[in-house]
């Protein structure tokens, strides 16, 4: 079983990491931790892409007379772009967390929901 599928091991590592990130995002209540989870997920996708670009016996895609086989440069380019975009979105998400903390005084999802419910309740009783 393992012998047959040994060549798929790289995908399985990526999937395992992806699922750890996914679990953190949906199961943990802390907003900063959720963002870390998104990052884990993201890096797993990058690993997946880069592992697809690898060619047996290939070398890094930098032209040289002595090299015959190169790995595929295309996934590298896509992931370079994705890394930078990923950091931009992380920065935006963190800014949202800071803003949430400023107006709610907490970064725990559960407490925020409680505060919102309380505010809704106040509104109902007042009207």
């Amino acid at each position, binding site marked *: 079983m393992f012998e047959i599928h040994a060549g798929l091991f790289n995908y399985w590592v990526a999937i395992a990491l992806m699922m750890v990130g996914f679990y953190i995002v949906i199961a943990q209540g802390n907003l900063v931790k959720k963002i870390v989870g998104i990052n884990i997920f993201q890096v797993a996708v990058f690993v997946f892409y880069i592992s697809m670009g690898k060619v047996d016996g290939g070398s890094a895609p930098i032209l040289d007379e002595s090299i015959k086989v190169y790995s595929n440069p295309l996934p590298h380019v896509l992931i370079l772009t994705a890394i930078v975009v990923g950091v931009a979105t992380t920065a935006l998400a963190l800014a949202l967390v800071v803003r949430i903390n400023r107006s709610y005084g907490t970064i725990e999802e559960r407490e925020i929901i409680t505060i919102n419910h309380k505010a809704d309740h106040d*509104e109902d009783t007042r009207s």
Partner: protein
Amino acid sequence: MAATAVSMLWLRDLFAVVMLSGIYSLFAAVLYVVMDAVDVAFTEAAVGAGISTVLMLGTLALTKSKEKAHKKVAYGPLVLVLVTGAILIYGTLDMPRYGDVNAPVHSHVAPRYIEKSGDEVGPPNIVTSVLASYRGYDTLGETAVVFTAAIGVLAIIGRRRKNKKDEPPTAKAKGESAS
């Protein structure tokens, strides 16, 4: 690498979690070097491990660095995650094997980039010429995204409100924001 990812699950000290996510990025960078993606590796090390760790530390300084106690294992999400993982693994079964020269990824535009980019664009690094020339619009779009994100961050936290300490939203504040 998997160990750092899993230990981030259990740790409640957010400072440690952020540091571990930096280490996780560095491990990923090492993995990229092994898989021949040197450019990606140093971008990941500089941007992923460097800048995003600094950003997260900044956030922790502005918020709280301890997570509240929570339930140990949430079974609903756990089942969901395991099922999704199993489906994805089932999906990989007919993927091309690692390092396969005949994989579909390598048969379309990549050979042309490898053969012609030296003459057509110039730099010996193929990734550079693809990034800056063949896929220049991608890079332009990326710059636009980063610019938009910067504007967004400034809009969200750039100016401090006059009342320094915003209270939790009362019914009145919520009504205002809704209107």
